């Protein structure tokens, strides 16, 4: 059921010294589902993260299950407050109070890493998995050169000599198409795109098996964003690492991810093959999200977005958290919490599919949005309808 990618043969990798030149470059061949499934390098089970505040707590991540195969590119999309960044930090063991993991497990390379101390994590951090943060300007040390920061990383996680460090730093910069002469620059001397790429280079210093990325492109302009995404994809296919990529922009990730997870109110509401998700989204929230993107090409349509707002996680509504905004809500949706259902190789958390695949329901389900061909101007009278202006 879950897709696995054929990983490039990285038999020549040498973890210790950091001179990890993969022997074989894959040319990005995708295998169809049903091929030999590699075992997962990351298994997340029922992970829950809460922010403990005053006399209560807020469930930011609610019992998330996730598997990640070798070399797989998983996108996690959702809007503000859905918990995607918290999920990322929870997996990477980067949570700080008041957030903490309150349940579940994170199994990386067969080892349980949730709850390990910093000291215990040191061996795995950066060597087996690394993290790329959202804003390079905030994540890079402004008073250290790029070389200095790479040296910090190398010294913290290995005992490479200074020469080896320098050499490796130049290698990784070349990997991301930055001239190694910039090693001695300070972050503010680099452009936004270059800063972001140098962060990615740092993440690749030990050629880890997993790189976790938290919206690395959102601070960039659209052209730089595109080129960065292409670069990331290239590197991923060349070096064979898996990626978990968190973003709010579904269309950005659509061309690059193998599988896509959609999050809402701390839960995964849909998880499946990217192409399939885009072509036939099952969960009403996913459908709504896809409807909210005006397109450059193709006919112009009037779009409605998704009326209302995400729920207050301190007071989640009973039953399905999306029920208050769902155009296909049923009576039982407000009392029963939908479990994650397997519908034709797609995981959906929705009671609509309790009884099987969507074909059976297609006739009954109302289309959430009317599609009309419109001339250049849009009709009046439709904007201020069920907008989130309604008071709570």
């Amino acid at each position, binding site marked *: 059921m879950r897709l696995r990618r054929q990983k490039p043969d990285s038999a020549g990798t040498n973890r210790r010294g950091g001179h990890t030149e993969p022997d074989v470059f894959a040319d990005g061949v995708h295998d169809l589902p049903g091929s030999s499934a590699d075992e997962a390098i990351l298994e997340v089970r029922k992970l829950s993260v809460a*922010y403990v*505040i005053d006399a*209560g*707590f*807020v469930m930011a991540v609610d019992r998330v299950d996730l598997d990640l195969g070798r070399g797989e590119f998983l996108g996690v999309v959702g809007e*503000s407050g859905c918990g995607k*960044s918290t999920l990322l930090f929870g997996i990477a063991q980067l949570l700080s*109070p*008041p957030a903490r993991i*309150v349940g579940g497990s994170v199994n990386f390379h067969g080892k349980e890493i949730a709850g390990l101390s910093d000291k215990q994590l040191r061996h795995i951090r950066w060597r087996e998995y690394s993290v790329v943060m959202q804003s390079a300007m905030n994540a890079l040390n402004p008073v250290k050169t790029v070389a200095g920061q790479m040296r910090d990383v190398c010294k913290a996680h290995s005992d490479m000599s200074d020469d080896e460090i320098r050499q490796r730093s130049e290698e990784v910069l070349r990997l991301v198409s930055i001239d190694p002469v910039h090693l001695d620059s300070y972050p503010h001397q680099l452009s936004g795109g270059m800063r972001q790429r140098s962060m990615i280079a740092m993440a690749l210093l030990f050629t880890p098996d997993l790189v976790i990325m938290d919206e690395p492109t959102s601070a960039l302009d659209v052209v730089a964003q595109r080129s960065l995404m292409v670069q990331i994809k290239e590197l991923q296919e060349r070096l064979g690492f898996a990626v978990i990529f968190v973003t709010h922009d579904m269309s950005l990730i659509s061309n690059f991810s193998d599988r896509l997870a959609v999050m809402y109110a701390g839960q995964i509401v849909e998880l499946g093959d990217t192409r399939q998700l885009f072509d036939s989204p099952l969960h009403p929230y996913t459908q709504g999200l896809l409807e909210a993107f005006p397109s450059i090409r193709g006919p112009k349509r009037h779009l409605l977005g998704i009326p209302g707002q995400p729920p207050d996680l301190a007071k989640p509504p009973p039953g399905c958290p999306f029920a208050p905004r769902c155009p296909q809500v049923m009576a039982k949706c407000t009392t029963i919490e939908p479990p994650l259902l397997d519908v034709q190789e797609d995981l959906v958390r929705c009671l609509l599919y309790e009884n099987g695949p969507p074909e059976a329901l297609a006739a009954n389900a109302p289309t959430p949005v009317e599609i009309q061909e419109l001339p250049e101007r849009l009709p009046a009278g439709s904007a201020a309808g069920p907008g989130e202006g309604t008071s709570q």
Partner: protein
Amino acid sequence: MAVAGAELREAQAEVPVPGRRRAPRGGNLWRAVRHNHKATAGALLLLFFFVLAVFPGQIAPDSYASTNFTRALAPSGAHWLGTTALGQDIFSQLVYGTRESLIIAFAVGGLSTFISVIIGVSAAYLRGLVDGALSLFTDVLLVIPTFPLIILIAAYVRSAGLLTIIIVLGLLGWSYGARQLRSQVLSLRDRDFLESARVRGERSLYIIVVEVLPTMTSLIVASFLGAALYAVLTAAALQFVGLGDPNAQSWGTMLYWAENSEALGAGMPLWAIMPGVCVALLGASFALLNYAFDEISNPALRPVRKVMKAGLGGFDSGMTLDVVPGASPSRSRLGEER
């Protein structure tokens, strides 16, 4: 897992809804003061001194200056803290002395805060040469050691009455606050709501008074409390040194006379100690309120307390959690809000 889920929901239902993350205003302020231990302590102390200042006659058995009693008596039922070398009741003196100390604290606090607001905010908002000049002036005053300067001035004026002390302290104590306020306004200056006011066509003065100042109330209050503390201590010191009016009814003057009469050595230790204790307590009340205000307006400063078993049902019951009361999930701007 459904069981754990149900327990979890129940646990959430029992738990009171956490309040919004926000600096409190109005009724919330009262609640915040009550919850914060430092604030409560400071407020109670201050209230205590207030009562003493407003109703000295009701509390003190005798007047400040009456020298009717036997000199140098030890504490007794009639004189709780004994009498001075001149036959005055120490306890009554303390009570009457409160008024002047409080007046100094609030008057100087108010005056120097007023000046620091005007100078700090104007410098930051008007920028350019005005900022340069005002900042230079502020920095010079910051650098000059104020206490020796105050002594010089007070000595020049000879015996300084209450008004002189207030003016001198007020005119020299604003520089620190001005610096702080200037930095704050500089960081606020390019916020969109200020630009929005400019684009709307508002005049600069309006923007400063109506749009900028209200967002800085906590800093201004903190500034005031700091200035009040400084005033109480410095005024007492001035009077102790003998630069105040020796006939004034205040703690500092008590210290002066006690020193003059070598109270510690002559068997009247309370005469020397108690005024000092009062000064310290009043100062402490301002300091406590100052800390508390910081913590109330900035949740990140609040103390981390341990809370046992926050009721997380099916998971790790019995788990000890580190709780930062009042804090809430941080939102990074670029990330979560896109």
